[in-house]
């Protein structure tokens, strides 16, 4: 089935019962699918009047402990950033999909995009079967760490059809939702509060203590980043002269390009980051040991290359072999995603 449909099925399988979105290519089909798939399972899909409202509605649903998601394309994600930042400070779980156009939103995804000192884990599937798994994992992480989690896809992922069987994945016991609102604690003297300004009720003469709250959020962020094992696919790097780093759809093409180079006798290997945050720093550093060069391919002007340089710390030269590759639509359909073109660039990085 098509990626959008599979991702929607994966969300429903993960327990998602609330979705809100606003149409935008190439995200639109996910909204269509959620509108189709949620009502039969008792879920709600809202056709929000803007991305601002979509994320606001998802915020409200998330505050009730309902597994919720929203999404858009990078531009729409820009509109949502204020809420995503505050959702992290309100310690609310939410899955946010970015069906991006090309890969220009790496910094938006991994560097926050919004205000304040927060982090959102980012998962970048390379194809439909992996998206099915990672989307479900995103719900598990969001609920476990009470934090927004991003799934970073693209036009290819949304519109490619692959054979896939969506089954619910068991990630262990369901996380605690005793913090969630349903109205029932009203009048008890301990009525619940879900707020980006603090979780403590006013007592004596103290209002919201933002210092205390931000420190508590920082501790939660720290625990989350320590608790999430960075994920990456690493192959053929042990004897590699050139190690290529690429993620998402280009990561899939790089795998093929590296294998083709091996057949030509070029000692190439690759690291495909699956979590962009936390970044698989150690995997990249280990893979780079003994290599003559680390080549980074991204369909942008070079964003992840910063994280690769931070991982390698100058021990191996890092060469950027990516760059913008678009057709006239700007949706991210990339002429460069061709095994021969990529193979030549990888080999070129060695010379």
């Amino acid at each position, binding site marked *: 089935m098509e990626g959008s449909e599979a991702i929607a099925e994966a969300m429903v399988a993960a327990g998602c*019962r*609330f979705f*809100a979105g606003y149409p935008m290519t190439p995200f639109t089909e996910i909204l269509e699918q959620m509108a189709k798939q949620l009502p039969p399972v008792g879920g*709600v899909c*809202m056709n*929000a*009047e*803007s991305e*601002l*409202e979509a994320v*606001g*509605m*998802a*915020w*409200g*649903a*998330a*505050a*009730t402990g*309902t597994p*919720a998601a929203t999404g858009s394309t990078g531009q729409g994600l820009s509109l949502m950033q*204020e*809420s995503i930042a*505050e959702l992290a400070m*309100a310690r609310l779980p939410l899955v946010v999909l970015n069906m991006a156009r090309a890969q220009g939103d790496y910094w938006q995804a991994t560097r926050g995009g919004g205000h304040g000192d927060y982090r959102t884990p980012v998962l970048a599937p390379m194809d439909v079967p992996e998206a099915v798994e990672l989307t479900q994992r995103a719900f598990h992480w969001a609920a476990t760490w009470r934090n927004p989690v991003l799934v970073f896809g693209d036009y290819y992922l949304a519109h490619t059809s692959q054979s896939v069987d969506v089954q619910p994945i068991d990630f262990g016991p369901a996380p605690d939702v005793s913090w969630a*609102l*349903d*109205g*029932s*604690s*009203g*009048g*008890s*003297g301990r*009525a*619940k*509060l*879900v*707020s*980006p*300004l*603090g979780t*403590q*009720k*006013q*007592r*004596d*003469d103290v*209002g*919201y203590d933002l210092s205390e709250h931000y420190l508590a959020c920082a501790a939660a962020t720290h625990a989350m980043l320590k608790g999430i094992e960075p994920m990456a696919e690493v192959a053929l790097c042990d004897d590699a002269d050139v190690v290529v780093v690429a993620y998402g759809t280009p990561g899939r093409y790089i795998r093929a390009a590296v294998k083709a180079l091996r057949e030509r006798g070029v000692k190439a290997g690759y690291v495909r980051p699956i979590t962009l945050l936390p970044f698989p720093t150690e995997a990249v550093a280990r893979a780079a040991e003994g290599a003559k060069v680390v080549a980074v391919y991204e369909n942008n002007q070079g964003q992840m290359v910063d994280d690769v340089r931070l991982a390698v710390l100058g021990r191996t030269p890092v060469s950027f072999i990516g760059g913008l590759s678009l057709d006239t639509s700007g949706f991210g359909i990339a002429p460069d995603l061709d095994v021969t073109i990529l193979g030549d660039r990888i080999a070129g990085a060695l010379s």
Partner: protein
Amino acid sequence: MTDVPVRFVPTDKAPTRAARMVDDFTPALIEVGEHHLCPGCGEPIAMRSVLEVIAELDVVQRSIAVFGIGCYTAFSNNLDLEVCQALHGRAPSVATGIKRAKPNTVVVTVQGDGDMVNEGLQEVLHTAARGESVTCIMLNNGVFGETGGHLTATTVLGQRTKNTLDGRDAEQHGYPILISNLIAQLEGAAYVARGAVNTAGNVSRTKRMITRAFETQLERRGFSFVEILTMCPTGWFIETEEAPAYLDDNLAAVHVGGVLKDW
């Protein structure tokens, strides 16, 4: 000088009668009685009315309040009511998500004129148009009170604020938006009313409006909305005791009170 006997309470003796509280004016749903709003502010009166209605309708254990950002946010963490704090302008969307996810809850939003009519105009209009089964309360004092008295979308013509020093001038600053009148035109809005808290009579009338708004939600008739004109002597730069009359002469002269729509 006439010889008036000096009345004083001798402090070296215990009083003959122990002090007693005549009445506790704190509504049951407020956990901490003190707030940090200015003397003469109308928002605590409006909040009290909302809380009393929730208690009287016996929906305390089903209610979730969604707060915007303004002076009234002082009440978002001292209520014995479940609260979801929203961003500036976004409360109606958050309320939508709560209500749709948990249809048996009673959802009320509290926003000011800056929050709702400036930053969040689109959200409240669409929420009303969808006929969302929530109750939105808007505390309208015609200024950004929290920042110290600045122009909002409801500031009346001629009103002096910190960024309209010579008064709001239509040519330069445009005209005030009459939000209740706007919302009342939408099919999804079932109950729309504009009250005020500057006199005992108005407080009483406003409370009846709030009750009706909650009944609208409980009966699932559609979107319900109560705009409440509140005093802000600090943001109006007038004496506290002048504020109730100032409200009548200025704010209420443009934002005219009454029930605009009732199912």
